[in-house]
């Protein structure tokens, strides 16, 4: 295997991009979404989930490290790909019709950048900052993560900010999922592709699910 070619050629860096993205999607985004769904079932379940996560620290740290690596690799490759693309288009057509290009595809670098900002803020909000309250749950003292999340989403600005980023996540995923598969060499036709449709539905579903917490916390306090 030729390392330079595998990771730095145009197809190679797209494979890197696709793979790091896929790791984040499978190992982080999907479990995270599963956890979030528990929020709907009240504070006990959610706090217990949070507490169990803490007991699984070695695994969690392992995944966190993997996430960190993936994020760095993903961003590095994305920056390289994007800059190369901009360079290849030094002069643009004054009129340009792009019938096939989706908004999601066009916005990839921007939605990606927004997601990065979001992740930083999200970590500051919920991971770095320790929960203020502790409560008893089944005879143990645990952090009141549920309450903390609830409190966070009492500010309209915060909610709107989170929702905006959920939209970015949705856009990013809707192109990313199908594009990943095409990069791996799976044929996704231009018209009438089920994979494109599924990719879009998964993206909308995930963004919607993530949006439930802020909406619910804001509306049903």
């Amino acid at each position, binding site marked *: *295997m030729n390392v330079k070619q595998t990771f730095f050629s145009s197809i190679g860096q797209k494979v890197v991009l696709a793979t790091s993205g896929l790791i984040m999607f499978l190992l982080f985004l999907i479990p995270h979404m599963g956890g979030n769904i528990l929020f709907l079932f009240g504070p006990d379940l959610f706090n217990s989930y949070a507490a169990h996560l803490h007991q699984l620290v070695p695994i969690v740290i392992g995944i966190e490290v993997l996430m960190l690596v993936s994020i760095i690799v993903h961003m590095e490759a994305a920056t390289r790909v994007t800059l190369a693309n901009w360079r*290849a*288009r030094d002069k643009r057509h004054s009129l340009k*019709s792009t019938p096939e290009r989706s908004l999601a*595809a066009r916005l990839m670098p921007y939605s990606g950048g927004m997601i990065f900002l979001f992740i930083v803020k999200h970590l500051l909000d919920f991971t770095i900052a320790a929960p203020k309250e502790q409560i008893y749950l089944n005879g143990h003292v645990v952090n009141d993560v549920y309450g903390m999340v609830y409190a966070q989403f009492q500010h309209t600005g915060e909610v709107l900010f989170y929702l905006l980023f959920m939209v970015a996540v949705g856009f990013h995923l809707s192109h990313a999922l199908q594009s990943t598969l095409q990069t*791996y060499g799976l044929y996704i036709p231009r018209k009438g592709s089920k994979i494109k449709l599924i990719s879009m539905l998964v993206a909308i579903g995930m963004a919607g699910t993530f949006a439930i917490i802020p909406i619910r916390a804001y509306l049903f306090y």
Partner: protein
Amino acid sequence: MAEKINVTLKVWRQNQGEEGEFKIYQAQDIDTEASFLEMMDIVNEGLTLSGIEPIAFEDDCREGICGCCGAVVNGKTHGSHERTTLCQLHMRKFKNNDQIVIEPFRAKPFQVLKDLIVDRSGLDAIICEGGYVDVKTGNAPEAATTPIKRALAEASMDAAQCIGCGACVAACPNGSAMLFTAAKVSQYALLPQGHPERAQRATNMVNKMDELGFGNCSNEYECAVACPKGIDVKNIARLNREFIKASLMSEK
């Protein structure tokens, strides 16, 4: 039926080594049966007689097969008629008093030589890296020695139809030559004759494409819409497979 129309052309004019600009010209009494390039001929005759150098544009066969012609017309490579080269676009696609914006194919590796003529030699350079089967004249066995499944021969032919016009590069938001490269890699990947070199072909052609400053494929399929020969993006998927396989295998 034939009628006469007047159109206004907004054409990119650029001399070698200079910055270009759009110029406005009138095309009067154009027969709608005329082809787009015949309209350009008429305009050029008029310009010549009024002492203005004619608009330089490339063309040759005017049958849609040589791949010489091409410009972005009203934002579309080769104009608005799907699966048609510029030379096969006809004036009946336009209305009286339309404004037509004509500009060269743009991408970093396609530098403008003059007006609408760009340098597409990068595409030839990619082919030089392996867009062929390395067989010497005289090497060949009897043609019927190797039967080839008809479906594969047809799929190979689908890819082999590429005319090398460069519309895919111009239409790509990233100035990528992936569809062009993929078509050639696919043609040979689908046939047994191409198999001995398939790994190095995919690798070398992609590396050349990168080296020349073509962009990356972001799977947006603008190329396939622009392609006058209807070459499909499945070839890009195939190129990805060929390349990934070649990268993972240690033996070339």
